[in-house]
């Protein structure tokens, strides 16, 4: 196996890229947030709870959560054709699954809560950035929540277990394994995917690293939410 010696900018193997988070970035939405990690930027808007049409889709027991993940055409080096792809449909699906556990949707029967995520600049880890932004946007929308959700990708680059892979690391010629993880602030894993090859002990080590990193991201999310209400005054 190829050894992986040094990360760009002397980043440590357990160190995330620089993070920025902001809440309230889209005025017309019920809740919104921006989350940036390195060169990856996600924005998310929440619309709802609002009436669900057609009405036969309504559930008298609960609100329905709908998530949509999309990449701006210019967010990647080679222009991405606008509109959904198989990839974006799957990411939309797992994003909803990652978020729904913390939401108390039973409080809003017959309605829908829509989450729209757009990646405006991409350098790996976009689904995780999207989930993290969406969680803040849901909190900002005042949707009843038990916890926040934060998300990060971990993985193996060459022979090293690392957190927050960038695009060059994902494409590492010695082989890379990418593991997007989302975790509630209660410690439950709500997103777990993997592409590559890894042993069980390595995977467990990577998940531990994801847990530690998600805890740090949660602090950033909380601060962004608090800062928004500070400014409001």
């Amino acid at each position, binding site marked *: 196996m190829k050894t992986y010696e040094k990360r760009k900018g002397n980043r440590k193997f357990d160190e995330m890229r620089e993070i920025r988070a902001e809440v309230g970035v889209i005025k*017309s939405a019920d809740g919104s947030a921006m989350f940036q990690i390195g060169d990856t930027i996600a924005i998310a808007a929440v619309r709802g709870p609002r009436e669900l049409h057609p009405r036969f889709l309504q559930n008298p027991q609960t609100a329905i959560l709908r998530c*949509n993940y999309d990449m701006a055409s*210019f967010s990647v080096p080679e*222009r991405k054709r606008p509109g959904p792809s198989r990839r974006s449909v799957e990411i939309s699906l797992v994003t909803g699954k990652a978020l729904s556990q913390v939401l108390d949707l039973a409080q809003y029967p017959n309605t829908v809560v829509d989450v729209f995520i757009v990646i405006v600049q991409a*350098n790996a880890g976009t689904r995780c950035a999207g989930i993290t932004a969406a969680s803040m946007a849901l909190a900002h929308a005042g949707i009843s929540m038990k916890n926040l959700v934060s998300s990060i990708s971990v993985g193996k680059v060459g022979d090293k277990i690392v957190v927050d892979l960038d695009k060059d690391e994902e494409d590492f010629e010695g082989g890379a394994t990418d593991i997007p993880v989302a975790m509630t602030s209660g410690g439950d894993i709500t997103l777990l995917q993997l592409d590559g090859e890894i042993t069980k002990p390595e995977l467990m080590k990577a998940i531990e690293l994801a847990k530690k990193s998600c805890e740090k991201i949660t602090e950033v999310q909380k601060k962004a939410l608090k800062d928004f209400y500070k400014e409001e005054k």
Partner: protein
Amino acid sequence: MNSDYNSEYIASSIEKDTRLDDRKLEAYRKITLETGVTKNAEGSAKCKIGDTEVMVGIKLGIGEPYPDSPDQGTIIVTAELSPLASPEFELGPPGQWATELARIVDRSIRESKTIDFKTLCIKKEEKVWMVFIDIYPINDDGNLIDASVLAAAAALKTTKYPKLVKNKDDYKIDYNEHATKKLELNTPAVTVTVSTIGNKMIVDATREEEKAIESRLSVALVNGRIHALQKGNTKGLKIEQIDQMLELAIKKEGELRKLLPK
């Protein structure tokens, strides 16, 4: 119901020369233009007009020329009206409004000859540059047209070619290499949209005002010369009204133009 009431109130206020946000009828909201807002685009800009925010990214690709213009590249303009930006936008393929918006921006650039398409020729009859101009509203609080044209013009001004790699007779783009050559441009058009209620005219309608207005006219201008027009909404215009609307648009052009990067 609510919106009808709002529209009536907005219309009657404008008849009395007042607007809900205390603006003069002929005043824009605060406009900011920022360039270089997304790294993987060859050029980009964000335009904010009040709470309206539009992001435009320019991507360059290689394509084949049309048979009737073998030495010319082209522009392809799209508007993605994501429901992120407005409660009125829906998921799905571009609707009529997205298509109209994209075509208004397309014509403001095409008809003002902002880009001489011959400069986009790589090899006659075989390969040309295609300039993709993609418009993403982030928040719609009205006047997406003027904001999109302004953002597109600013984004074009900052556009640099990616590296072209010649491989025998084929061409490829290396997007990792930073290019130095800038897109050659003539003076881009800016578009001023003038709306009417009764015999009053306003510029820069908010989303609520857009529901109350009777008619709109978007005018693409380069130094007082008209390069494209689009009349919107259902109410017809008198010739004298058109005269006044054009005059107002021409009067406002400089205000928008001075925001563009050099």
